[in-house]
C-alpha cells in the first residue's frame, strides 16, 4: 500500500467514482465513470506490494483505510442507478471523499519521505 504507483492508481479509481457519482447526482445520468467504478468495486483487487518490509505508514493507516474501503465497496456493490436515490449517492460520495483524503495523506507522506535531505 505504500507503493506510490499503487496509491496513484487507487486515487484515480476513487476520483473516477466521485466524478461518476457527482454526474449521477447532478444530471441523473449513469456515466461511464460510474459504470467503471461499480465494476471496480465488484472485482477483487490485489493491493499487495512486493517490498522488503512494510512501511510504518501501512501499519498506521491500513486499518482506517481498509474500513473505509470495505464500506464503500459494500455500498457500491448494491448500487443500482435505476433504484438508488440521489440522497444515497450523496452519502456514498461523502464516504468516498473521506477515503480519498486518507489515501492522499498516505500518498503525501510517502512522497515526502522519498525526498533527499
Amino acid at each position, binding site marked *: 500500500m*505504500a*507503493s*506510490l*504507483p*499503487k496509491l*496513484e*492508481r487507487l*486515487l*484515480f*479509481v*476513487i*476520483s*473516477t467514482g*466521485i*466524478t461518476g457519482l*457527482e*454526474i449521477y447526482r447532478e*444530471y441523473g*445520468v449513469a*456515466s*461511464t*465513470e460510474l459504470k*467503471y467504478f461499480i465494476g*471496480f468495486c465488484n472485482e477483487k483487487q490485489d493491493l*499487495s*506490494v*512486493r*517490498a*522488503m*518490509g*512494510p*512501511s*510504518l505508514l*501501512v*501499519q498506521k493507516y*491500513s486499518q482506517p483505510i481498509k474500513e473505509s474501503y470495505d464500506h464503500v465497496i459494500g455500498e457500491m456493490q448494491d448500487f443500482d442507478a435505476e433504484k438508488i436515490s440521489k440522497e444515497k449517492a450523496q452519502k456514498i460520495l461523502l464516504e468516498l471523499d473521506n477515503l*480519498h483524503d486518507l489515501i492522499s495523506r498516505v*500518498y503525501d507522506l*510517502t*512522497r515526502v*519521505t*522519498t525526498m*533527499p535531505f
Partner: protein
Amino acid sequence: MPLDSVYDHIDFIMGQIKQWKSSSVPYPGIRKNLVLSADNHVNGLSIIKNVLSKAIIKPAKGIQERLEKEGKKADVEDIIRRHWFRQVTECYHVVERFNFDFSNQISPVLPFETHYWIQSVFENWKTYFPLVLEASNQFVNHSFKEKILDPLAPLIEVGLDYTIPGTLEKVNVSDVLEGFKVSSGYVISYIRGEAKNVLLWPILIHEAFHIIDREKNLVGSLLGQDVKLPVFSEVKDINSRWVQEIFIDIFSAKYFGPTYLISLVNYFERLPYVQTIDHPEMALRIRAVQEYVTTTDVEYTDIFDKCKSHCFEIVGEKIKNFLAAADFSVEKEEKIIEMYKIVSGWFDELNPYSFRMALKNYQLQKNDEKSEKTFVDPVYSFSEIADLVLTNQVSLAIDPRILLNVVMAQYQRYDPEKHFEIMTDSILKWKIRREWNKIVCCS
C-alpha cells in the same frame, strides 16, 4: 485550450527527460537500460496528455453542450474544475513523480557498478530483463508497467469506451496508447540513506529474486509439484504472501551466502515491524535463514566456515532475542524448518549458481586452463581476502558475493571512508574480468 497550463508543465518535464545526456553514464549496459527508462517515462507523459484530452476534456465538452441545450451557460474549464479537478491534480502529481523517479535513476547514490552485480543475478538464472536502480525510501521492486502505465489504468479504461453523459455519443480514445509503448523491464528502489551501507546491499538480491519469481514463477512451480508447504496463516491469501516472502529470503540467502543473515537482522533492527497481510513476522524470516547458515558446510575453502562463525558472533545474540520475543513455539519451529528443507531442496534442484557453487568455482579457477589468455586470479583464503581489502586496500576482481561475505563478516574493520571505493572498484574489476573471460573462452 482547456488545461493548457497543465500541458505546458508536461511538455516541460518531457523536454527535461529528452535533454538528458546518456553519454554521462560511463557503462554501455547500464546506459542502454536508462535510455529505455527515459523512453518509457516520455511515453508515459504522452499517454497522460492523451488521457487528459480524450477522457477529461471531451466528456466535459459533452456536458457543456448538454447544459447549453438546456439554455444554461457553462464553461468547459469550470466543468473540469468541478467534476474532474481531482484527476487533473493527480495527473500533475504523477507527472512530477515520473520526473522525480527518473532523476533518482540517472543520479544514483548507489554506484553504477552495483547495477552490474544485480544484473548478474538474472544472468546466473539464465534470464535477462532490463533493470534500473532508483534511490527512494524503501527496498521495493516494480515493473515499468506498474510504475508508469498501471496508475493511469482507471483513466485509460474509462476513456476506452466513453459515452458522453446523457447522450449516445461515444468518445473513442483507443488511440490513447497508440504509439506510446512502455517497454518491459524492472526498477529496484533502495533507501537513499542506506546506499553506502554495504550491510544492506544483500537486500538488493532479495528484490532481484522477487523479480525472478515474478518472471519464472519459482514459488508457483514448486507448489505445482504437489508439494505441501507448511501453513503459517489460516487465511489462504495471507498465507501465500507470507510463504512467498520466506521463500524469497531462503533463495536470497542460498544465492548470496551466510552473511545475508547479518543483513536481515540489521534491516529488521532499523525498520522493525509487526506482521502484516503482506509480510510474516520478522522472527520467521530470521529463523529460516538461520537454518541455512547452521546446516550448510563447504569443505574446499575456509571462507564459508569463517563467514558463518563471524556471522553468529555478530548477530547470534540478537537472533536469540528476536526469537524469544516472538514466543517461538515448537510447532512453529517445526514448520519453519520443514519450509526451509522443501524450499532449499527446490533451490538445489533448479541448480542455480549458488554461493556454494561460486566458492567452488573460485577455488577451482587455478585449474581452469581453457585458454592461455584467460585471466586467472590467485585463490585467497578468508583472512587473505580480508587483509587485502581491509588492510592493504586492494581491489579484488572476485565474485562480489565472496567479497561482500568476507567484508561483512569482518565488519568491525570496515571503514566506509577508506573501503567503499575499494568495494565498487572490485565489482568493476570483476565485471571486466568476467567479460574478458567470456570473450576469450568463446573466441
